[in-house]
C-alpha cells in the first residue's frame, strides 16, 4: 500500500474524475451494443432518440432489445457496482481495515438467507418477493452482528469481524437447510440467485434499487471527514471530537442499506467492494472525500465490465456474474492478506 520511499505518488483527483467518466461512457456504449443481438452504434443513437415508446415504423428488434433488456441491465450493473464499492469504502474506513467488505458484517449472508427463505416459501412468483426478503435478512443480520459485538458499550473491531464470520457461517447452514427441503425448481432459482446475476433484470428492480442507492451514497458522503479521523483509532478519533460509537452505528446502517439493496437485486456479487477502493487508494490516497465518489464511478465500471464479460465470454451461454467476480476477487484478497501480514500490520 505504501511505497518503499514513503513519498507521495498520487494523481490529481480531477484527472482521475475525467478518466473515470470517459471510461464509464465507453464501457456503457460497449455494454449497450454488445450481446446476443448486436446493436450498431448509429442504430444505438437512433433508438435512444426514439424514446422508450415504440413509434411503430422503427426497427422493433433493436428498439425492444435496447429499452427492455440492455438498458435496465446496464443501469442495474452500474447502480449495484457503485453501491457495493461505496459500501466497501465506508466499511473499510469505519473498521480501519482494508479487508473489510459488506460480506464481513454479514449483510450478504443475511440477505442470502432472506432470499432463500422467500424462494422455498414459493414467494419468487410474487413480484419483488425475493428482494424484499433479502433486504430484510441483510439489514437484520447487520443489526444482529453489531448488537452481539458490543461489549461494555463499545465495539471492538476484531470482535465485530469475528461475529460477522460466525453469522455468515450460520447463514450458510440455514441456506443449506433450505436447499435440503426445497424442490428441484426452487434449487435452481436458489443457485442462480446465490451465484449473483444480472440476467433477470426488469425496470421494476431498477426502480427499487436506484432510490436506495442514491440515498445510501448521499448519506455516506456526509461521513467522509469523520472516516478520515477514524484512521487514528477509536481513542484518538474521540479525542479530536468524533462521537465514535454513534458514527459507527450510523455508518453500519448506511452500509446495510447499500449492500443489502444491491444483494437483494442481483444476488451475491463479491469483492467489488474490496478491489475498487483498494485500487483508488493507491491512485488517489486514502482521503475519503475523493475515495467515495471515485469508488462509485469505478465500481460502476468494474461491475459493468464484469457483466459484459460474463455474458459474452461463453456466449450464447451466460457465466454467473458472482462467480466471475469471485474468481478474480478471491486471489486478490489472498494477495492483499499476505501483503498486509508481511508489511507493517494494520490489524489494530
Amino acid at each position, binding site marked *: 500500500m505504501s511505497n518503499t520511499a514513503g513519498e507521495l505518488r498520487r494523481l490529481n483527483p480531477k484527472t482521475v474524475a475525467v478518466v473515470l467518466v470517459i471510461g464509464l461512457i465507453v464501457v456503457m456504449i460497449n455494454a449497450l451494443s454488445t450481446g446476443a443481438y448486436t446493436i450498431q452504434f448509429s442504430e444505438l443513437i437512433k433508438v435512444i432518440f426514439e424514446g422508450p415508446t415504440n413509434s411503430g415504423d422503427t426497427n422493433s428488434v433493436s428498439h425492444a432489445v435496447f429499452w427492455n433488456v440492455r438498458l435496465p441491465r446496464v443501469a442495474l450493473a452500474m447502480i449495484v457496482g457503485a453501491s457495493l464499492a461505496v459500501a466497501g469504502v465506508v466499511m473499510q474506513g469505519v473498521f480501519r481495515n482494508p479487508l473489510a467488505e459488506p460480506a464481513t458484517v454479514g449483510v450478504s449472508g443475511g440477505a442470502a438467507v432472506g432470499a432463500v427463505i422467500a424462494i422455498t416459501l414459493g414467494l419468487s412468483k410474487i413480484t419483488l418477493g425475493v428482494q424484499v426478503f433479502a433486504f430484510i435478512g441483510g439489514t437484520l443480520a447487520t443489526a444482529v452482528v453489531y448488537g452481539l459485538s458490543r461489549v461494555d458499550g463499545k465495539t471492538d473491531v476484531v470482535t465485530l469481524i469475528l461475529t460477522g464470520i460466525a453469522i455468515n457461517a450460520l447463514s450458510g447452514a440455514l441456506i443449506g437447510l433450505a436447499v435440503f427441503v426445497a424442490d428441484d425448481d426452487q434449487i435452481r432459482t436458489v443457485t442462480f440467485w446465490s451465484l449473483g446475476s444480472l440476467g433477470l433484470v426488469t425496470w421494476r428492480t431498477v426502480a427499487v434499487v436506484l432510490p436506495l442507492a442514491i440515498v445510501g451514497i448521499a448519506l455516506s458522503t456526509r461521513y467522509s471527514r*469523520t472516516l478520515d479521523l477514524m*484512521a487514528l*483509532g477509536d481513542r484518538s478519533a474521540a479525542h479530536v471530537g468524533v462521537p465514535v460509537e454513534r458514527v459507527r452505528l450510523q455508518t453500519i446502517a448506511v452500509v446495510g442499506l447499500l449492500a443489502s439493496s444491491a444483494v437483494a437485486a442481483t444476488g451475491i456479487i463479491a469483492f467489488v467492494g474490496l478491489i475498487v477502493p483498494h485500487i483508488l487508494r493507491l491512485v488517489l490516497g486514502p482521503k475519503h472525500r475523493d475515495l467515495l465518489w471515485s469508488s462509485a464511478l469505478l465500481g460502476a465500471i468494474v461491475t459493468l465490465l464484469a457483466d459484459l464479460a460474463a455474458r459474452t465470454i461463453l456466449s450464447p451461454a451466460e457465466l454467473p456474474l458472482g462467480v466471475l467476480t469471485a474468481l478474480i476477487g478471491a486471489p486478490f484478497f489472498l494477495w492483499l492478506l499476505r501483503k498486509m501480514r508481511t508489511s507493517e500490520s494494520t490489524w489494530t
Partner: protein
Amino acid sequence: MVVAQDAHKRKYLDVNINLNTVIKCANVSVIRSGKQILCDVSMHANAGELVAILGPNGAGKSTLLGVLAGDLKPESGSVHFGERTVAEISHRDLAKLRAVLPQRVTVSFPYSVEEVVEMGRGPNLGNGDQEFIETAMKRLDVAEMRQRLYRSLSVGEQARVSMARILAQDTQLLLLDEPTAVLDIGQQEKLMGLVRTLVDEGRTVIAVFHDLNVAMSFADRVILLQDGKQVASGAPREILTAETLSKIYEHKIDVIKVSDDTGPVVMPSPRNR
C-alpha cells in the same frame, strides 16, 4: 502570527489565569475487572502549569490520564473542566478544551504527514485551519516531511508528527502520555523546551513521565502514584528525594547535585549494597 497574537492575549490574561484551575479531579477511584486501579486520587492543574504524573509501572498513571481526558468513567469521584463536569461536555466541545497524546498512534491507511496533522483540527475543517496546521508543523520541525507517509516514518518521527497534531488542535489543556519515551536525548530536550514554551504561553500540560530527570528539570509540580494511590505531590525538588523514590521504586536511588545551574540528577545506585 497566530502564535504571537495568542501569546499576547495570554500574557494579558496572565494575572487571572494563574489563579484559574483548568482541570480538577476529586476522589477518583477506578476499578477494572475487580482490580482497584486508582484509589481516591485528587489533583488539579492551573493555567501556565506543567504537572508531571510519576510512578512505577502499574501505578495507574495512564489510567489517571484517561480519566482526565474523559475516556474512562471513574467508579466514583468527579472530573471538572472549569465549572463543568467532563460527563456533561460533548465530544466536539471536549476536543476544543483538551488534546491527548497517547503513547503511540498507528494510523491505518497511507495518510501523509500533513494529512495526519490536519486531523487535529477535528470533524469540521474550515479555511482558518491551515494556519494552525502550518504553525504546528513548524514548531515540531515536521513541515519538511509533510509529503511523506506517516506509516513510513521512524517511531521518533511519528511521535513528533503526533505531537504536531495535538498542537494543531490548539487547546488550553494538553494531556501527554510519555511524550519523550521514543525520542533521542536531543529530540527530547527540544520537545520539552517546546512544552515549556507552551506552558509559559499560558497553556496547561499534564504529562506522564518515566524519566524522572525530565520531570525534575521541566515540571512545575509532580504527582507520585503508587498502586493507584497518590503518595505525594508538590514541587519536584521537594518530592523527588532519594528516600521517597527508593521506597516507591523498591530500589536504592540517589539524587545527586551536579552543578549550581542545573537541577539535581536522579540515578539508581549500583546493585550491590
